């Protein structure tokens, strides 16, 4: 059924390396998303009408535009506009961070606005500054809700990185295709085994992380 191909030569190592590429891009994007998301989320709670309008448009774009489309816009569009090539890796980090920041910011905004107003008022009554209120009162309250949600974002990011093969990055799925192609004659059934293994690899990368997120969510809420 094609499983024998996996252990031929360096094939399995190559698959793992492919997965590594995907994981690396996810990790970089997640870190950028969390940092930017915290800041953008706080800005979104401001009552300024311009900020409100801009953040609504930003969130709506991310809500309805497939990441694949965004990837195409950045990867092909940027080159077209500037005449300079942008690497596929950089394109994907830009797009995934753009998407992840919106997701994260919306979570942060949701958490912040769910804190009762009286918490801000009582902090003010105690003489805490706005910054002190955030650092000592508000953030400790939302952090327990944010951590599981951020961990969840990691798994979603990993799954989304499967798209990068479509702009030519050699990640696990692409490696899989190459292996099948190279062994077409000797193992005509390799597609089943190879894609089953890729499926499993993604599952093994995401499942423990989403279990951890679920566990923390149950424990902390």
């Amino acid at each position: 059924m094609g499983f024998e191909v996996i252990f031929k030569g360096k094939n399995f190592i190559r698959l793992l390396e492919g997965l590594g590429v995907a994981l690396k891009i996810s990790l970089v994007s997640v870190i950028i998303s969390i940092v930017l998301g915290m800041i953008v989320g706080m800005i979104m709670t401001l009552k300024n009408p311009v900020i409100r309008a801009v953040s609504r448009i930003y969130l709506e774009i991310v809500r309805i535009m497939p990441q694949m489309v965004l990837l195409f816009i950045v990867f092909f569009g940027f080159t077209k506009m500037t005449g300079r090539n942008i690497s596929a890796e950089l394109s994907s980090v830009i797009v995934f961070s753009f998407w992840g920041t919106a997701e994260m910011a919306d979570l942060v905004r949701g958490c912040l606005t769910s804190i009762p107003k009286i918490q801000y008022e009582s902090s003010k009554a105690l003489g805490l500054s706005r910054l002190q209120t955030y650092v000592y009162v508000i953030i400790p309250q939302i952090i327990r809700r944010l951590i599981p949600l951020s961990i969840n974002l990691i798994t979603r990011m990993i799954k989304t990185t499967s798209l990068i093969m479509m702009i030519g990055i050699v990640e696990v799925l692409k490696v899989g295709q190459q292996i099948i192609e190279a062994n077409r004659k000797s193992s005509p059934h390799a597609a089943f085994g190879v894609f089953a293994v890729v499926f499993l690899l993604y599952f093994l990368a995401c499942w423990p992380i989403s279990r951890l997120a679920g566990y923390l969510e149950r424990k902390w809420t």
Partner: protein
Amino acid sequence: MDTGVITSYIPIFAKAFLLTLKIGWIGVALAFVTGIAGAFTLYFKIPLLSAAVKCYVELFRNTPLLVQLFFIYYGLPVLGFKISAEVCGAVGLGLLGGSYMTESIRSGLDAVPKIQMESAASLGLSRSQTFMSVILPQAFTISVPGLVANVIFLLKETSVFSAISLMDLMFTAKDLIGLYYNTTESLFLLVLFYIAMLLPVSFAGSVIEKKMRSKMFGGRDDGI
């Protein structure tokens, strides 16, 4: 941007749009059916089937659609299951979506307080009457935001269909960019058609959510 190019591309994109829309919504419908079946199985703790549903949900929620499609489209024919790209797209979307819908509906069912069941039992309602008249409508209302998010998510996921050579919007854009280098025009139309596909859904979803929320959790009226 060249308007002439855009006008000449519109029919090509429109054709791809209809195909994407059709397969997308068939997938969504399949996802709903699968999700309802899965959630009921978990809620009523049907032995064996429950365990199978749990495995299915974990597997499909923790893997990308692209990988699922590759496995179904290129892997399964080895075992003798050969299906067309269109069927594969719809089935793949239905399976992925089914796992998300199962979760959303199940958590809606779990969110209905147990005492509502007791309240119905105190009025003499049977178990099936309680489920149909009391639990299900409330669970559905609670699930609506999750279900709407799932529908939008699934329709967005149609963008990977091109990988199994389905001639969808993405495929068309990529094809035209590759052939004629009209990158700007192609990307413009790609975005436009995805907006046409998802903005109405996003808008309708917000309206439904608001309606549902104000009905069940809404504020008091002025009569008090």
